[in-house]
């Protein structure tokens, strides 16, 4: 069942490119090769079901060893005090905040891929969004370590949150550091919700494929009893859209807020308005680099060339080129403004940074890795050769770490007063803590690969040519070729080497055991629950549902491995009301944020900090936004679960011998016994008459 994965070197099969490209250009499918719903399910699920390849265990040993080092370093820090780090006057922020900003930045690519590309209908994201979202979550976990430990009193970490407490004190809502906390925790929560909602159909697939009872129970609980009902899909699709909409402003806001930690201070090198866009571009840049860093080895190790194609890597490299150049522009503009502003302190900092300072080497490492090296991506070969891309993204990851190091340490070591200048020397605890972060990140990544589907199966199935009723199949010898019989571009030749896509199947695969006409369920009532029939493909099911509607049935449901367009109308349902819940959540969050901040800062415990007024509402805006998004996300999740009637761990339909295909490659129509026109024999005959297979009536 393993799809063939021809390994060809880029550009090997192209003949000379034609002078004029054919119009329209043949569209290259997102998945290369003759994959079907079944092969994709099998290819992805198999990774989590079979023992891992030999290298997995040594890799896990190394990463978990590093993680242990990090845990020991943190334990030593907490038991001894922050003095074990090299941070001290004047460089009071050093490796800790460098690593924090580095990891927060890494997360941004995942959210961009999962949210912004979703809203822009960039369907190529389906192959990489699960992986990138997982990386977002792991990166934010790595970052989240630092606010917890960097003040040395871990047991007071809950002081960061505005919880009613026995001290009767609350945070200063006018502080950029508190905005940061809200931004990062909202970001983590929404990313986790988004990731989990995306996982639900795939967890159900793993449950339905599971052979062992423990896997059935674990994935059964995690998937909340998802079975691919169209009544659920219609809420699910809208919930996913809502979450994408909520995540989109987060991509832009999180690193903007992180940059405020620096930009709202008066330190030369930090006090600049270019920081928010500069940080966001850098975050997406670094994030894409890390996605490729993990994706390229995983793609090779698990032979995912047909799903994560060379085109995916190519497009991500273009993202790197664009964001890298944006970051490079910001570097140059910082220098220019330092000179143009005529501010001697600013200029001193930048001369020291780029020319004659203690950290000039770090600045040029940053410039080389982030600005100069990514320029190779103007060349196609460089974008389409995985090992070379891996090399470049490694440089970028190093460069992005140095960017934060330069901004933080270099700016701090020279401030206004020459008497307080000083250098920073990391201690072994600093190094161990930093390596520990990488250990944590890659340990989580390895566990994710081991236990969860790393590619969103349900989403990939929906973008297969066979899921598209309007896809025009050409004969194999003309596949992706122009009128002149040649491949219009090198990419067409690369894709065509994997073979043409498979058409949808026309017959229902046989059941492994005979399907009785009436299927009893455990603890059954003796009454029928309804009738069920299987169909060969999505189009057949759609037509069957329409036929059943015309016949007068109303209590219909269609069960599909992915959301089929037009199916909710075919079973007589309309648009989901879920956005109302999202709106209610957003308004609740906004009202909560307004009340919380004004009440605490102007009435409950009025304090003057930084000479600002009690009612300095401008400073409350970031948390208005964050809490709006946070509450909207929670309401969306609970509305999805509630409107779908989940969790529904037991369902009579599970007794049907082939129904487990509904989350893999099967298409089912059910007519429930609550339907006024339902009659055990007539309905069963009707389902047979419209082409249904494996027809049965299920006991309630």
């Amino acid at each position, binding site marked *: 069942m393993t799809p063939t994965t021809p390994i060809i070197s880029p550009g090997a099969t192209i003949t000379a490119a034609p002078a004029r490209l054919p119009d329209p250009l043949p569209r290259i499918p997102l998945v290369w090769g003759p994959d079907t719903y079944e092969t994709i399910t099998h290819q992805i699920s198999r990774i989590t079901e079979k023992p891992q390849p030999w290298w997995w265990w040594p890799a896990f040993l190394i990463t978990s060893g590093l993680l242990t080092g990090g845990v020991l370093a943190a334990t030593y820090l907490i038991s001894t005090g922050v003095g074990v780090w090299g941070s001290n006057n004047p460089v009071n922020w050093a490796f800790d905040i460098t690593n924090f900003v580095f990891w927060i930045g890494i997360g941004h690519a995942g959210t961009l891929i999962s949210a912004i590309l979703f809203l822009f209908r960039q369907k190529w994201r389906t192959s990489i969004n699960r992986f990138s979202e997982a990386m977002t979550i792991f990166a934010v976990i790595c970052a989240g370590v630092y606010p917890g430990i960097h003040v040395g009193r871990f047991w007071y970490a809950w002081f960061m949150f505005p919880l009613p407490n026995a001290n009767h004190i609350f945070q200063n809502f006018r502080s950029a550091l508190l905005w940061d906390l809200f931004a990062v925790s909202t970001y983590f929560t929404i990313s986790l919700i988004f990731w989990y909602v995306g996982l639900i159909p795939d967890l159900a697939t793993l449950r339905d494929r599971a052979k062992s009872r423990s896997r059935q129970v674990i994935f059964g609980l995690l998937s909340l009893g998802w079975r691919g009902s169209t009544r659920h899909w219609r809420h699910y699709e809208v919930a996913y859209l809502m979450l994408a909409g909520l995540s989109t402003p987060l991509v832009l806001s999180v690193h903007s807020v992180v940059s405020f930690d620096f930009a709202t201070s008066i330190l030369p090198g930090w006090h600049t308005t270019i920081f928010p866009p500069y940080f966001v571009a850098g975050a997406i840049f670094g994030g894409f680099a890390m996605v490729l860093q993990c994706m390229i080895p995983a793609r090779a190790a698990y032979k995912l060339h047909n799903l994560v194609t060379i085109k995916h890597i190519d497009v991500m490299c273009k993202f790197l080129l664009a964001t890298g150049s944006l970051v490079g522009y910001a570097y140059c503009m910082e220098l220019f403004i330092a000179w143009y502003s005529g501010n001697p302190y600013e200029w001193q900092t930048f001369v020291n940074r780029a020319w004659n300072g203690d950290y000039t080497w770090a600045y040029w490492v940053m410039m080389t890795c982030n600005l100069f090296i990514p320029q190779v991506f103007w060349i196609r070969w460089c974008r389409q050769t995985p090992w070379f891309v891996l090399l470049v993204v490694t440089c970028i990851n190093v460069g992005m770490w140095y960017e934060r190091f330069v901004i933080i340490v270099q700016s701090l070591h020279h401030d206004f007063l020459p008497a307080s200048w000083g250098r920073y020397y990391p201690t072994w605890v600093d190094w161990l803590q930093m390596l520990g972060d990488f250990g944590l990140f890659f340990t989580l990544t390895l566990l994710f690969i081991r236990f969860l589907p790393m590619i969103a199966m349900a989403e990939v199935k929906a973008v297969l040519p066979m899921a598209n009723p309007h896809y025009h199949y050409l004969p194999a010898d003309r596949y992706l070729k122009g009128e002149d019989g040649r491949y219009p571009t090198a990419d067409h030749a690369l894709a065509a080497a994997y073979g043409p896509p498979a058409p949808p199947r026309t017959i229902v695969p046989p059941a492994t055991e005979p399907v009785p006409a009436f299927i009893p369920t455990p603890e059954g009532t003796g009454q029928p629950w309804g009738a069920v029939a299987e169909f060969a493909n999505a189009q057949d099911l759609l037509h069957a549902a329409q036929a059943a509607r015309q016949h007068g049935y109303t209590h219909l449901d269609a069960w599909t491995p992915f959301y089929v367009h037009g199916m909710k109308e075919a079973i007589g349902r309309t648009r989901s009301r879920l956005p109302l819940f999202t709106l209610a959540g957003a308004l609740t969050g906004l009202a909560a944020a307004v009340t919380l901040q004004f009440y605490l800062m102007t009435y409950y415990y009025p304090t003057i900090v930084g000479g600002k007024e009690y009612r300095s509402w401008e400073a409350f805006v970031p948390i208005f936004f964050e809490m709006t998004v946070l509450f909207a996300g929670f309401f969306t999740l609970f509305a999805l679960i509630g409107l779908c009637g989940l969790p529904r761990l*037991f369902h009579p339909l599970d007794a049907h011998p082939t129904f487990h295909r509904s989350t893999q490659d099967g298409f089912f129509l059910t007519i429930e016994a609550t339907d006024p026109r339902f009659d055990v024999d007539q309905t069963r005959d009707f389902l047979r008459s419209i082409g249904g297979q494996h027809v049965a009536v299920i006991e309630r």
Partner: protein
Amino acid sequence: MPQVFPKALNPIAKVVVLGFPLLLGSAGLTGAAFYRSSYATGVDEILPQPVAFSHAHHVGQLGIDCRYCHTSVENSSSANIPPTKTCMNCHQQIWQGADMLAPVRESYRQDKPIEWNRVHNVPHYVYFNHSIHIAKGVGCVECHGRVDQVNLTKQHATLLMEWCIACHREPEKFLRPRSEVFSMTWTPAKGGVWQPEDFFHADSPEAQTLIGTPRPTTQQELGALLKEQYKVRDRVTLTNCSMCHR
């Protein structure tokens, strides 16, 4: 696929998932209740002491003034633990052979202080000063409770910051005339007349007009008047961080 879960699990699973926020909330409330419980704060906990000293006997029955032993309470940040000499002022005359007082005599003989276990332990980052509270008319009883009724010394208040803040926000609810600070039984309803020692400057014209006249008998009126007389600062200043954390 066979059925994995029993039918009865469906409603249970729904309750668990939708009850999850409730679970989190109640976990938080439990934590908050625990944090304030006498177990965590040490309220009413009786620590073992070298001598079973009874405030109820010395203060309640004999009527010894607080300042007889805690001499520095009016002038210093700390209300001192008395030296053994203070005990011996009386106990070389009475109960001089009592077994109970053996550690006191031993301490006196060897010139070594008795090692009491500390009952009221305010965190080190709080700069608490007894003298200013006494000077501004905060009675001993407000924080230490009815020590005249307590046999073995124990903590009366939680000493949590919310407890400090409650008074710093509304000091007028807790102020009393300076001459009543050491009284265990005073209430505003007892009234009485203004004494010269109720004022910082008994010879000031304002004090002169008040001395001898009846005091207000409600805490509301009395507190407002005392707050002004004693120049107790406003709520924002009193709750400023640097008031207690320096």
